[in-house]
């Protein structure tokens, strides 16, 4: 390109963002995606502002929102496991995605998919990336501030196990559950609470079911015995609810093979499958790769780092009611921490064996780190070529598939595992408009705006007395969707179909299809096979081949962005 052409290109990018065929680097990672398509017509783009064309009779049609939409996100780079990587516009009607495609006024523009009315709220998306809201399927809500942390990181759905500083790992009391649901309605979040499946009979499970849980948690700290496991899975099959499993890390009653046998082909969500977070030592990772066992990771072991092992000893003792002065406790903690399984876990993510990432917030993970660590991990395996300039850009294999695989881990896949996919998990017509907007420069590290049920509910806000909305100090905090009765209305209470519990001002939605979901249903994943961990915990193989990765001394998306 001539200098003049280059100037024009840079100006066009500054105004319109990326177009079809452009390469976009995600934050400070080594991930570079290529935009697959752009629904805009060049020269005829809908634009907002002074002297622009989003005006009555031009880009806006003078009709009611029933014939257009309530909200439109225009010209945004969507990165979504269902949509792919494309520039488009997203129309929203009554909190749900109503149309996706070219936006504008069909009176004066060709091939309009998203009709913009003269009263439609417009969120300009140029220069931003839109993803579905993150789904954190492993949250210990020991403090209400975990909700703020989650929202500030681009998470809009929580599968929680407590609501306060009490020993929970699932809650059984329907009286207590009612208060939990009521409290969660204060945030513009979808929340499902897991009941405690520590019952050798179904009596406590029935109570939690009536109390409106969306699933159950089995945890060794409250009993992951053969009986509790089988009772919970049998109960789950009868009521279409998900089971999250933290296995018997002591191997007190079962080895990992026994646990797999008790599960007997039934669907189960295997939490922190690497094992630092708990579960059969040293080989709980063997649960990955089975069709019925939907494995997830918690975020401290992701983007496997040089300090990961040291951190975990301290974390385990701190999180599990243990005492660092007791040699027995320290020994148990040490047994859970293995570099080889962490190194293997990261590689198993990259090749599509482990389909879900989560936080384990306040219980050995960070509520606001799942997007960041998931993409830092993706970057570990990316090809640096285009950034180094060592390869011609048009011959570079871009990271599109890898990026979509990692988006799926935080969005559609946990939605499928927990039976939420009829409401959330993708940017798709009919689903809730839970959408996170990220600047290209801080993708997956710091969001610009969190749209919950179609309304800006969280995001970057600045000096409140300023002439402009973006004056320093910019902080990430509540937007209008987080106040008054709006949060209750914008969020969903994920429950089960036998629940007798209602939440004031909030819609209750039963989960479904939790019993038939399988590993092969996981988008951009579904790679099945035999994961083996040798009894020392020092070697991990997948289908006989050693799987490992190198510990990173520097994680992307982190030092550049965090104070």
């Amino acid at each position, binding site marked *: 390109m001539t200098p003049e052409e280059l100037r024009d290109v840079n100006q066009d990018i500054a105004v319109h963002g990326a*177009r079809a065929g452009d390469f976009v680097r*995600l934050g400070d990672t080594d991930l570079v995606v290529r935009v697959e398509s752009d629904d805009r017509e060049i020269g*005829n*783009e809908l634009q907002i502002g002074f002297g622009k064309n989003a005006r009555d009779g031009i880009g806006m049609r003078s009709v009611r929102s029933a014939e257009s939409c309530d909200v439109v996100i225009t010209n945004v780079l969507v990165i979504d496991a269902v949509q792919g990587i494309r520039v488009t516009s997203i129309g929203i009607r009554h909190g749900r995605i109503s149309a996706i495609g070219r936006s504008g006024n069909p009176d004066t523009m060709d091939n309009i998919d998203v009709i913009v009315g003269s009263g439609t709220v417009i969120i300009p998306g140029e220069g931003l990336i839109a993803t579905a809201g993150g789904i954190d399927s492993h949250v210990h809500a020991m403090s209400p501030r975990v909700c703020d942390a989650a929202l500030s990181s681009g998470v809009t759905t929580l599968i929680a196990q407590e609501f306060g500083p009490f020993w929970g790992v699932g809650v059984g009391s329907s009286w207590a559950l009612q208060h939990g649901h009521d409290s969660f309605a204060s945030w513009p979040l979808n929340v499902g609470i897991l009941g405690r499946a520590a019952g050798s009979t179904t009596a406590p499970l029935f109570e939690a079911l009536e109390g409106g849980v969306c699933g159950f948690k089995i945890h060794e700290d409250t009993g992951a015995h053969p009986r509790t496991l089988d009772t919970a899975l049998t109960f789950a099959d009868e009521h279409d609810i998900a089971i999250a499993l933290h296995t018997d890390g002591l191997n007190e009653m079962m080895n990992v093979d026994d646990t797999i046998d008790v599960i007997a082909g039934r669907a189960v969500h295997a939490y922190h499958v690497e094992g630092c977070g708990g579960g059969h030592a040293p080989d709980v990772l063997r649960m990955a790769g089975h069709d019925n066992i939907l494995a997830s990771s918690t975020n401290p072991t992701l983007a496997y780092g040089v300090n990961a092992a040291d951190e975990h000893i301290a974390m385990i003792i701190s999180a599990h009611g243990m005492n660092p002065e007791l040699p027995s406790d320290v020994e148990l903690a040490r047994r859970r921490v293995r570099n080889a399984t962490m190194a293997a876990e990261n590689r198993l993510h990259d090749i599509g064996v482990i389909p879900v990432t989560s936080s384990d917030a306040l219980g050995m993970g960070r509520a606001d780190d799942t997007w960041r660590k998931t993409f830092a991990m993706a970057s570990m395996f990316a090809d640096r070529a285009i950034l180094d300039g060592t390869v011609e850009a048009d011959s570079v294999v871009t990271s599109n598939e890898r990026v979509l695989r990692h988006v799926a881990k935080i969005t559609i896949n946990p939605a499928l595992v927990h039976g939420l996919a009829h409401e959330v998990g993708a940017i798709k017509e009919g689903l809730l408009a839970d959408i996170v907007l990220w600047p290209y420069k*801080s993708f997956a590290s710091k969001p610009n705006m969190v749209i919950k049920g179609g309304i800006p509910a969280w995001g970057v806000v600045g000096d409140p007395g300023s002439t402009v909305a973006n004056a*320093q100090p910019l902080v990430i905090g509540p937007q209008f969707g987080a106040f008054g009765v709006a949060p209750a209305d914008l969020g969903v209470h994920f429950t089960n179909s036998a629940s007798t519990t209602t939440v004031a001002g909030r819609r209750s939605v039963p989960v479904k299809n939790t019993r038939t979901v399988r590993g092969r249903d996981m988008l951009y994943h579904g790679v099945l096979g035999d994961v083996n961990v040798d009894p020392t915990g020092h070697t991990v193989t997948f289908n006989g081949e050693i799987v490992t990765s190198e510990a990173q001394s520097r994680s992307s998306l982190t030092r550049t962005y965090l104070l």
Partner: protein
Amino acid sequence: MELTPSEQDRLLIFTAAQLAQSRRDRGLKLNHPEAVALISHAVIEAARDGVSHSQALAIGQTAVRSDELLPGVASMLFGIAIEAVFDDGRRLVVVDFHSTEDNIPGQVTRLSSTTSSAPADIVTIDVHNDSTVQISVTTHMHFFEVNPRLRFDREASYGRRLQIPAGEHVDFPAGTTVAVNLIPITGERVIIGFAGLVDGPLDAPGAKEQAMAKAKALGYLDGGAA
């Protein structure tokens, strides 16, 4: 002190800047929030020292040096908006740091220039501004209905708009003549609103004649042959 929320925000900037300064003093390279805090702090304190707006801007632009920044941070330091209290009141300063670094988080790379297929049907007309002020017309305005004080071939402009990229405009300085290219309005070609000269489908039988008559009756200047 009776501090307002906005004043309390100054303290957040100050604290972050102090933290950043202590890290800079230890010889550490600055990341994005650290650099933004130092720039914001410099502007606010310059204003407090009594300098002018332009001086405060210059101080903000040089508050950090490229070699003090972590890789990739320089390109992220643009559009930093700061409210500072100057002697003549609170003023907004927007700082852009001049970056020449190749490491650009979020960089967009385009291999060839953007091209749009040129429309086949273009008419060129001269437009004279009879008014005393400059008139500007944006891309997608129905050109037929623009300011009545613009004198041009109204009939030739019926159902057309300017052939310029979306979001741009053409200026018609007072008393001058400017030639413009017009292209057909697309879509269903329905023009609702504007000056009300059409208010319906452009290509309905008799619509153009009616619109011409209405424009003439309302005094829209017309430089056309008729």
